[in-house]
């Protein structure tokens, strides 16, 4: 049995959380932590708080390779984890739709899966070349990140 399954996906398909949970769970695991990012429809306090939809674009080949890098970094930093699934969707997404998932398994709830999932989504948002265009009632615009990669990223 593979004790360290790693699933990387950049896809237009809907995220099947049950399938991801099954795929990362090994016989060694008693815990699965799933982070799911969804399209937020209202951002209180923003100049234009309402988002109608988001459109995601990726530099596919590099995005897949950077997703793999994120998974490798998660394993280096959180030795207790077993399975990892990283899924980023591309295409048009409506409010409420799941867009990204980071699913991690480990033996026990204190084994690092929570921390690894947090690290994984933070890192994905820094180095995986994916961009979203936000459509609001007043028009649409690309969202630009604020992370500037350094050597080693």
């Amino acid at each position: 049995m593979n004790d360290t399954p790693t699933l990387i996906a950049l896809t237009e398909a809907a995220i099947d959380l049950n399938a991801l949970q099954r795929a990362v769970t090994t016989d060694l695991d008693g815990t699965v932590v799933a982070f799911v990012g969804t399209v937020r429809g209202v951002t209180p306090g923003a100049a234009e708080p309402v988002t109608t939809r988001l459109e995601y674009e990726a530099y596919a080949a590099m995005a897949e390779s950077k997703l793999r890098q994120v998974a490798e970094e998660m394993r280096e930093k959180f030795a207790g984890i077993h399975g990892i699934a990283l899924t980023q969707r591309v295409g048009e997404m409506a409010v409420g739709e799941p867009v990204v998932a980071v699913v991690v398994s480990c033996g026990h709830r204190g084994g690092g899966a929570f921390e690894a999932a947090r690290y994984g989504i933070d890192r994905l948002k820094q180095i995986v070349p994916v961009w979203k265009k936000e459509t609001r009632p007043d028009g649409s615009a690309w969202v630009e990140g604020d992370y500037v990669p350094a050597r080693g990223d």
Partner: protein
Amino acid sequence: MKIYLFATLRDRARARSIEISLDKPTTVAELRQIIAAQHTTLAELLPQALVAVNQEFAFDEDTVSPDNEVALFPPVSGG
């Protein structure tokens, strides 16, 4: 050589890629200047744009060759 564009840069150029003439290796810093000179619509976006060479982030002092795969894009905003 072909430069792939994404997000704001693709919209500005109205193209998924542009062609530039480059016949010998240069630095990423010089590449930015060459692109700005040959594709003036992109000039104002270039200082903040990230450069990837062969699908890895590249920095101004790095070398880029005409046979590399090069992409230009804004800081990422996935997730």
